[in-house]
Every structure is written in structure tokens, then in C-alpha cells.
């Protein structure tokens, strides 16, 4: 009995176990924080140069969009905005690793991922602006509707992917999760169903260190979130989430593996939320400015830019052109979201059921009559 403490794995074990990437203390990286090649972990393949350049370009564009959206939120043009800043590599790397036919299941924080998948900016921001819940057509972009309840969409991803298997479709679902969301029961059920069904799903946990104010240490005692894969019989990778190349390579590996029928993969990407939880949050209440500054210095875009520049893959002209493209994007976002919002109260009743019920038709008519009664420009009280 006295031997017990020795034979149980320590609850805080942080040392790497060979063959257990999920337990590895050092996240895999292909390009290190200074833009040098990472120690080759022998597991991930460095993406080819055109992919690296596109990763960089999309991160620059995403950042510009993110900064603009943050500003719009501060001006009251958006109801709220949860910034992706700092997590650029995760969101861009993961999305670019998807094939056309694959599906993205994003969270409320993944606006840059949604944009990178091709969703038009105002559509991507409708939820956060407040004109409708989901502003884009999921089938057009193969992007599931984002929304705020945590972890619930991971189960949708598993069901979606398993349906593809049942129908014989070649399609992988990428389920995005935050570190905090891994504590929810639905995350457990999603990982378990996926593993049992060998569903073609890649789970990407963006471990940005916090769930609003709650740090990871209060969220879990696990050696890593990737370690959770073991309890589901699911392989897992712990990667550097600020290394776009590593994110791309890991997700791409997961997609290929899943598409081959080998089942799901869990990826924990270690990153950091550079901004407060949302524009309305006051993060000085719960995190050190020094910590924030240190992470901001580990910027995923600068890292990839350094790597590309050193290899002649990005020159000043290229950078300037890109900066201009990013500004154009921001300007267009600003302009298109600074118009007054037009809403149609009649639409409130149109999508509750496939066909509005008699009761909804009555309520619709009553509301429209009420609105017609109101002076133009005056709100219904």
C-alpha cells in the first residue's frame, strides 16, 4: 500500500512518454518562435512553400479583419466581438488544411476561420452584429452555423461525419473547441461517439489558456488536453498552436487519416488569446499584463513571416502588396458594416417551422400591423 504513490501515474505528470504524443510535454512544432525550423519531431510534414505563403497571406488578411471587427464592436456597430487575435495560426492553418468537400464546425471565436473558409465578411459577422443568428448558408460554404453554447457542435460534427460514412461520402468534419469547452459533458460524448464509430472527424482544441477568466489549471488536472485521447482510444497530437505550419500539417494529417477510414484524431493546439474574451471583457481582472505581453511577442504571423523572409519566400514588395490587400479588406468590412441595419420583423416567423403555423401567421399579421401603425423611424416601444 505504501508503494501506491509510486505506481500511480502522477496526476501532474508532465514528462513525455515515447509513443504517446498525447502526453508529450513539448508541443510539436515545425517552425519555432523565432521563425527557425523547429526540431523535427518526425511526425509532421512541413507544408510546401506555396502553402506556407498562403498561410501567411490569410493570417495577415484575417488579422486585418479581426482588428477591424474589434473596432466596430467598440463603436457599437457589432453587438459583441470575441477576437481571434493570437489564434490566427490555429484558425487559418486548420481551415486551409481542409479539402473542398470537408466541413468546418466553428465556435463563436472562430470568425477568422469562417472568413478564411470563404464566407463573406458581413455574413460571417451577422451573429455578432445582431441582425440574424447565423448570417451565412452552411451548405454554400460547408461551414456549420456558429453559435455560443459550448461543445454542443462537436456532436453535430460527429453526426455529420458519421452520416457521410453511412452514405459513402468522402468528407471529413473539423470540430473546433476551446480549452474550457473540453470540460462539458458534450465534449466527452462527442469524442466517445467519434471513436466508437470511427467517424471521420478531426477535433481541434484551441487551448488559449483561459475560459473567460478561468485558467486551464482550474479546468483540468490532466497532463495535457491531448492526453484525453487515450481514454477514448483516439490518437492525439499536442502541437504549437502559434505555428501555422504545424497546425496545417496536423489537421491535414488528421483529415487524410480520417478520410482513409482510420477514424478521428484529437489535436490540442497550444496558443493564447491576445485580446480580452470579448470587447466587453476586462481581462486585467484575471491576467498579468506581463503574460499578455510575452504571448503577444510570440505572434504567429511574425513567426511565419520571419521564416518566409529568411528563405526568400517573402520580400518587401510582397509584404507591401499584402498590407494593401489587408487594408482593402478592412476598409470594405468597415464600409459594409457601417450602414444602418435593415431588418424584417416578418422574418421572425418564417423559419420556426418548415411552414409557419396558423398561430404564427396570426402573430405575424398582428406584428406587421403594429409596425405599420408606428411612425416611420420610431421604434415599437
Amino acid at each position, binding site marked *: 500500500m505504501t508503494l501506491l504513490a509510486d505506481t500511480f501515474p502522477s496526476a501532474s505528470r508532465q514528462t513525455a512518454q515515447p509513443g504517446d504524443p498525447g502526453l508529450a510535454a513539448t508541443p510539436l512544432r515545425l517552425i519555432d518562435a523565432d521563425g527557425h525550423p523547429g526540431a523535427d519531431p518526425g511526425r509532421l510534414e512541413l507544408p510546401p512553400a506555396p502553402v506556407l505563403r498562403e498561410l501567411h497571406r490569410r493570417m495577415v488578411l484575417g488579422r486585418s479583419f479581426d482588428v477591424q471587427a474589434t473596432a466596430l464592436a467598440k463603436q457599437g456597430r457589432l453587438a459583441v466581438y470575441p477576437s481571434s487575435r493570437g489564434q490566427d495560426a490555429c484558425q487559418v492553418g486548420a481551415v486551409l488544411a481542409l479539402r473542398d468537400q470537408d466541413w468546418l464546425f466553428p465556435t463563436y471565436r472562430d470568425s477568422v476561420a469562417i472568413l478564411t473558409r470563404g464566407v463573406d465578411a458581413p455574413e460571417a459577422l451577422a451573429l455578432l452584429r445582431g441582425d440574424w*443568428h447565423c448570417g451565412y448558408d452552411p451548405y454554400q460554404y460547408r461551414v456549420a452555423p456558429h453559435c455560443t453554447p459550448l461543445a454542443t457542435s462537436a456532436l453535430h460534427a460527429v453526426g455529420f461525419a458519421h452520416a457521410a460514412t453511412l*452514405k459513402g461520402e468522402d468528407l471529413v468534419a473539423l470540430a473546433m473547441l476551446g480549452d474550457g469547452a473540453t470540460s462539458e459533458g*458534450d465534449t*466527452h*460524448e462527442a469524442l466517445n*461517439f467519434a471513436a466508437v464509430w470511427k467517424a471521420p472527424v478531426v477535433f481541434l482544441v484551441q487551448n488559449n489558456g483561459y475560459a473567460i477568466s478561468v485558467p486551464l489549471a482550474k479546468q483540468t488536472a490532466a497532463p495535457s488536453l491531448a492526453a484525453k485521447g487515450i481514454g477514448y482510444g483516439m490518437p492525439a497530437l499536442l502541437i504549437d498552436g502559434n505555428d501555422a505550419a504545424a497546425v496545417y500539417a496536423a489537421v491535414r494529417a488528421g483529415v487524410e487519416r480520417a478520410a482513409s477510414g482510420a477514424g478521428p484524431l484529437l489535436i490540442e493546439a497550444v496558443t493564447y488569446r491576445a485580446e480580452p474574451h470579448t470587447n466587453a471583457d476586462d481581462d486585467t481582472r484575471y491576467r498579468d499584463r506581463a503574460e499578455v505581453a510575452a504571448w503577444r511577442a510570440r505572434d504567429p504571423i511574425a513567426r511565419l513571416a520571419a521564416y518566409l523572409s529568411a528563405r526568400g519566400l517573402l520580400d518587401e514588395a510582397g509584404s507591401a502588396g499584402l498590407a494593401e490587400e489587408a487594408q482593402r479588406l478592412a476598409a470594405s468590412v468597415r464600409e459594409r458594416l457601417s450602414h444602418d441595419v435593415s431588418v424584417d420583423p416578418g422574418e421572425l416567423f418564417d423559419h420556426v417551422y418548415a411552414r409557419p403555423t396558423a*398561430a404564427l401567421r396570426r402573430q405575424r399579421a398582428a406584428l406587421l400591423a403594429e409596425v405599420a401603425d408606428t411612425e416611420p423611424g420610431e421604434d415599437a416601444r
Partner: protein
Amino acid sequence: MTTALHSPAAAGSVLAGTAPAGTVLADTAPADAAPGPDAASPAPVTMAAALNRALAESLAADERVVVFGEDVATLGGVFRVTDGLAARFGPARVFDTPLAESGIVGTAIGMAMNGLVPVVEMQFDAFAYPAFEQVTSHLAKLRNRTRGRVSLPVVVRVPFGGGIGGVEHHSDSSEAYYAHTPGLRVVSPGTPADAYRLLRQSIECPDPVIFLEPKRRYWGKETVALTTDGPPIEQALIRRPGTNVTLIAYGGMVSTAVEAAEAAAGEGWDVEVVDLRSLSPLDEATLTESVRRTGRAVVVHEAQGFAGYGAEIAARLTEQCFYHLEAPVLRVTGLDIPYPPPYLEHFHLPSVDRILDAIASLEWE
């Protein structure tokens, strides 16, 4: 005060998911459950068998239909409603899941997004509660969230209600939770023929349907042709015409209401029985037409009365038929207590006597 009961808990009592043993079980034998060569010709059929036939025929008719849940494949469901389906349609169409209700509904949502038509089973009413967030925040709302682009033709089958001698958590009536949630349809059959028709219609319906199967009626037989012809999914039915009072029921209480109506005839009241069938949306037209005619109404359900579904019926009928009412709309419901243990459940459940008492108190001057 103490009441001695001279019989043990109701025969056919179940815990944690098993069909009643003994004679009642015989009703679910494959021979009965499997669709016969001519499904439409009248033959005695239990509600469980009618549901089984509806599932089988839906699976056969539409390859997008999948049936899954806990114990639905190999075992055929704890009430044998899915008996024989896995063998007939194979593991890609009918399969067992891990034991996790949120997982079942959550993955059903994802499958529906990808073009399938999932029909899932919650093993018992109270065991659907772990799925409540998926049902309320997603199943009900995804169509609206996406401006109608995402359609979720999911059917969630829930064996519901009491009267079977089940231990705690096996007899809840949870219809009010679902009926209050916009975006869901809530349906409950009262007879085998309706069980068949409504389940097939629910599977064909583009909206998500919470399909509440009254456990206590699973083994009741009706000699009837099973057909999808007849009233559409959201229409209430007059089960028994009458002139003096409208008695409103659904699910397991339909038979009780009809029984009460027969008994009331003996006492001089001509009772009309309306079977709602669809709790949401509600067929107000049939209901208000009846009550304006009779001038009196009683609504019956097993669920606790307070803030129960019957309150909506009473409130709505009063709003719409106020000047036709001779007396307030009364409710005969379960008591405002957690569902009782087997030996005490009959004290809780609406009975013919209680319905007659309610009718008697409707100011007959």
C-alpha cells in the same frame, strides 16, 4: 392514514428498460411486430406493433431513414418497438449507440444536417433530460438560426407517462417542457392506428418531432387497418361526438377519457372527446368549434397540473370561447408532486371517477 393494498405493484412493471414479462410480452413477438403481407387489412394490433410497423415501412420507403439509440438494435428496444429492424435493415440503418442521450440527439442533429432522417429513441422520459440542451438550443432552433437553410427532420421517440408500475424516473410526463419550446413539434398517439399514422407522418415531416409514446398503451390492441390515409399530423380528432361538454385528452389519457365519456352517458351527460394528437402546434379550430358548441370543457393529462400543458388549453379556450362558456374550463391532472412509486401511482393518475367529478362540477344548474 394507511391504505392496505392487496395486490403487489402492477404486473408488467419495469425498471431501467425491459419489456414487461409474461403474457403482455407475447404481443411483441416478431410475428406480430413484423409488418404482415397486407399491412392495410384490419387485424388486432398493439400500439408497440403498430409503431414497429411504421418504423419498418419508413426504413423501407426512404433510405435516408436511420434508427438508433440505446438497445434499439440487437435487443429491439426495451419495449420491443424496434424489434427485428436491425436484422432486416442492417447495422448501417439501425444501430445501438453508447449510453449518452445528449450524444444521441446531438449526433442525430449532425446526421440530419447531412441529409439523413434520424429516428432516435430515448429509453424513458426522464432519461431524455440529459439531452435537453441539444433538444432546446439546437434541435428546436437550427432551422430558425439559419434562416431555413438547415432542416432537421429528426424524430425523437420518447416512451412517456406512467401507469406501468415503473420505479422512479420511469413514468414522467414531460410534454410541457417540449410544447413550450418553439421549433419543436410535439405529438402523442392514443391508439395503435394513430401510432402508426402519426409516426410515419412524423418521419416524413421536415420539422423535428418529439414523439411521445404512452407506455401504458403499448400493449393495448385495436383491430384496425394501418394506413397513412386520414387526418394530417397536426389535426385533432373528435373521438366521440357529444353535445354537453368537451373532454380534451391526448396520449395515454385518450382511452381514459373515452371510458369516462361512456360512464358519463349513464349519468345523463353527452360528452364529446377530443384527442389532440398534436400538442404543438395545436389544432385550435377543432377545439374551439367543439367548445363553442358544448359550452363546457375539461382537459385531462397525467402530468402535474401546475404550469402543465393543460393550462395552455384552459387559458386559450377561455380567451377564445369566453362568452360561450357556462363554467370555467377545468383540469384533471396528476398531483403537483414528483411521480409516485408503483404502489402509490394510482392515487396520482387521473381516473374515470375524477373526470366524472370534474364534469359534475361544471355548473349544470
